[in-house]
């Protein structure tokens, strides 16, 4: 994969997520917030998602060489 192809793939996923959210609102299907809320009521999933969120913060804000 080239850099351009990869960036287009990420952008396509973001566009699909926005489209899915908009579709969910008009068709009474669950949006991302509702799916996350339902998943976060399951204890192991909750622990994994919140730990994953902490890892994302550490990875993005600590393990990066911007200086």
């Amino acid at each position, binding site marked *: 994969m080239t850099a351009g192809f990869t960036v287009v793939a990420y952008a396509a996923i973001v566009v699909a997520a926005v489209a899915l959210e908009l579709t969910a609102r008009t068709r009474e299907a669950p949006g991302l917030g509702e799916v996350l809320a339902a998943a976060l009521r399951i204890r192991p999933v909750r622990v994994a998602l919140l730990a994953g969120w902490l890892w994302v913060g550490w990875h*993005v804000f600590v393990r990066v060489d911007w200086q």
Partner: protein
Amino acid sequence: MEHVHDERAGRRESRAGVVLAGVILGGLAAAAYAWWAAGLAPFSLGATVAVVGAGGVAIAAGGRARRPAPRRVTIWQAAPWIALALAAAAVQLVSYLQTPRDDHPTISSLTNSLLDSQPARAAALACWLALAVELARR
């Protein structure tokens, strides 16, 4: 009777004022903290403690103010979102396993260039903390 209503309405208003003041003060404190933490040296113990510690506090704070139970979502209703998450994970994994990074960017390598300045990092850190609270409230 009217007097009692007025008193309750007044109490509600003053409680809303206290909540609003708390939200504004909390937001200002979080912004100041994010600015400070975004200036710490990368890969340092101080930065790790500042970021992960604040994330832990945000999650604990959100967990103390949980939202009411959401409506039931079946696995089939969630399937499009799960498929999208798997697609994102697949693109990320394929990029991660290949080099050079410039030709195979991961999400974090793309965000690194966006977070080059301290104001951008501070804003992103504040958003990350706010989302940590929101996630923990659900």
